[in-house]
């Protein structure tokens, strides 16, 4: 069990990505790093924005970093950001990320045509996040 958001959670998430055949297949030609921004919600135990980074390459996560600076994170090819509680909904599969983006609840920065071509891989990343045994910081 890992606390979300935390570096331990990120490590387990990366392990899930790297052991998933479905993701490997769906993202076999994907090349690009992603920064995830968990926006602060001080009343829920997330006092500051947290930036994490994952280098996704041909169906695997080659590298990841936790709590990178915004300057470092901004260099990623894609940036997905949302308040902590929205991410919690995504991880619990209560919020479909595509629907969330259309509702403006999740913000994506990066080449949208690329994301559109890899919707299956994106969905698989969400499925894998939901499989990480998670304890949420506001429910401790």
């Amino acid at each position, binding site marked *: 069990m890992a606390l979300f958001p935390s570096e331990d959670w990120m490590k387990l998430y990366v392990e899930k990505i790297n052991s998933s055949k479905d993701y490997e297949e769906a993202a076999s030609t994907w090349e690009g790093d992603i920064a995830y921004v968990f926006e602060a919600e001080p009343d829920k135990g997330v006092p500051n924005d947290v930036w994490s980074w994952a280098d996704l390459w041909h169906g695997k996560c080659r590298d990841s970093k936790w709590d990178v600076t915004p300057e470092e994170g901004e260099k990623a090819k894609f940036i997905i950001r949302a308040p902590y509680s929205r991410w919690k909904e995504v991880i619990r599969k209560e919020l479909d990320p595509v629907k969330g983006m*259309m509702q403006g609840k999740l913000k994506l920065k990066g080449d949208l*045509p690329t994301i559109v071509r890899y919707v299956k891989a994106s969905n698989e990343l969400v499925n894998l996040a939901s499989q990480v045994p998670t304890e949420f910081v506001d429910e401790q």
Partner: protein
Amino acid sequence: MEYVTTDPEIDGLGAMLADLVRANIAAHPERAKLLENVSGTINVKAIDAGVAVGLEFAANRFNVFAKPFRRAGLEIITDSGTLMELTAVPLWKGQPDVRTPEGRTVLRKMVRRDLRIKGAVAHPMLLNRLQRLLSAV
């Protein structure tokens, strides 16, 4: 030249469609020609997300509005996932290519009325241009 203009209030779906068209024209400059000699309005509704936007082809530009038109020439009504699929489906002559699995999926959704396109018969060119402009493949 800026081919896409947006309502300052747009967010979510409207911002995504505007970004998609901007990126497609940047990657394929020849697609700017799809804005020529065509005019008309389109409403796009993602029912499950509860959002709707208005799109307009006018004066060689693609305008995106935060709210749908009272009456639009075309109306595309479906769920958010299918809207994404529509932008990723291979096209043949500007229509979903039913020789591909993705094209057949779109066709099935139309038959089941999970995807409704009102005004397609009256405005075939408008629909054709929109599909080609939004296509990410």
